[in-house]
């Protein structure tokens, strides 16, 4: 009996390890910034260069920080969803225009729609590095205390919005 059970057991262990291991996405590196205060920044906004936006201004409300660029192809995929969120007024969306040219960025927003309350400009990606950005687009859910609660690596999808981001936002907005 053991003669047959041992290989079966070994196979099952291997199968479980492979099943879990291969279903992990190596691109989804868990961010160490989750549940940590969002790095502070003061940057000028794309449309109003004279206006400085500080991340502290958003204390007291739940907001999304979406890292985007006009050169980023995947940003185009998620963009209609962001526009939809903004239109529905679910949560204020702020943009971090990452390593981009101001003129092309403005053109891009004209073409695809502008969901952002404000889009701040990070031309050399310094703030991006503070946020651990390594693949654009990335989206952060930041709570009323200014703490990062969720990081979406890669484009926001209908699935991730419905199952993770929007329920989380609702929960965070309910908190004081």
């Amino acid at each position, binding site marked *: 009996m053991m003669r047959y059970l041992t290989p079966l057991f070994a196979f099952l262990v291997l199968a479980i390890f492979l099943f879990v291991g291969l279903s992990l996405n190596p691109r989804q*590196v*868990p*961010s*160490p910034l989750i549940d940590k205060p969002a790095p502070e920044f003061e940057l000028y906004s794309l449309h109003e260069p004279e206006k400085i936006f500080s991340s502290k201004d958003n204390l007291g409300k739940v907001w999304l920080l979406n890292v985007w660029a006009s050169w980023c192809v995947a940003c185009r995929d998620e963009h209609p969803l962001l526009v939809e969120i903004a239109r529905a007024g679910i949560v204020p969306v702020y943009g971090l225009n990452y390593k981009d040219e101001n003129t092309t960025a403005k053109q891009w927003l004209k073409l695809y729609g502008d969901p952002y309350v404000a889009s701040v400009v990070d031309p050399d990606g310094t703030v991006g590095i503070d*946020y*651990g950005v390594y693949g654009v687009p990335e989206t952060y859910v930041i709570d009323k205390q200014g703490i990062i609660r969720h990081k979406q690596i890669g484009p926001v999808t209908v699935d991730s919005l419905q199952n993770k981001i929007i329920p989380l936002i609702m929960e965070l907005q309910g908190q004081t």
Partner: protein
Amino acid sequence: MMTLIQCLLRRWLDKASIIIFCLGILLAYPILGWSEETYKEAIPVAEDPEIEKRMLALTEDLRCLVCQNESIADSRADFSNDIRRIIREQIKANKTDAEIVDFLVERYGDFVLYNPPMKATTVLLWFGPLIMFLIGALVLIKYLKGRRVQIEDVVLTDNDRKKVAALLDEKEITANVSEVEANNESLTQNFINKEQQNTSEVSTEEDKGKKI
């Protein structure tokens, strides 16, 4: 022959003209006074060889999160360029290597390190291979011990030995059949010789008897 020389000459002239053209541009460059804004300055590589050396030593043990299987030192990804720039800046700001690594781990997590620290979550990573080796060694020892017992268990009785001997003989006989057949002729020859010898011996005995 002439055409070959002409051809080579023409080719050489082509090349020479390109070189002269390039030289001309280079020489004319400061005279024409093209402003620096018209071209993008190359990334300064080795401003300070000391900084560069430290930066390289650090980045060799750091993972590029975009290309994942390359170190930041090897990678040409935009991400790695940024990290190299940040590290250079921090070295200039007199940060220690540990401080720089901490800075990156704070932002990108342990995944950025090729040498992961010992933690509750990395215990399996550090000791997994050792555990696998021990399991393998235990299985091997158990298997070898089992085999030794198997070998010792077989004790031959006298009856068995006889059987074995009989089997071995049988085997020898069958194996020898062909040899026997091959040697048949020489054997019969020997036999005849022996017979002849015998008869001659007998005859000598008879002779002896007669003499007696």
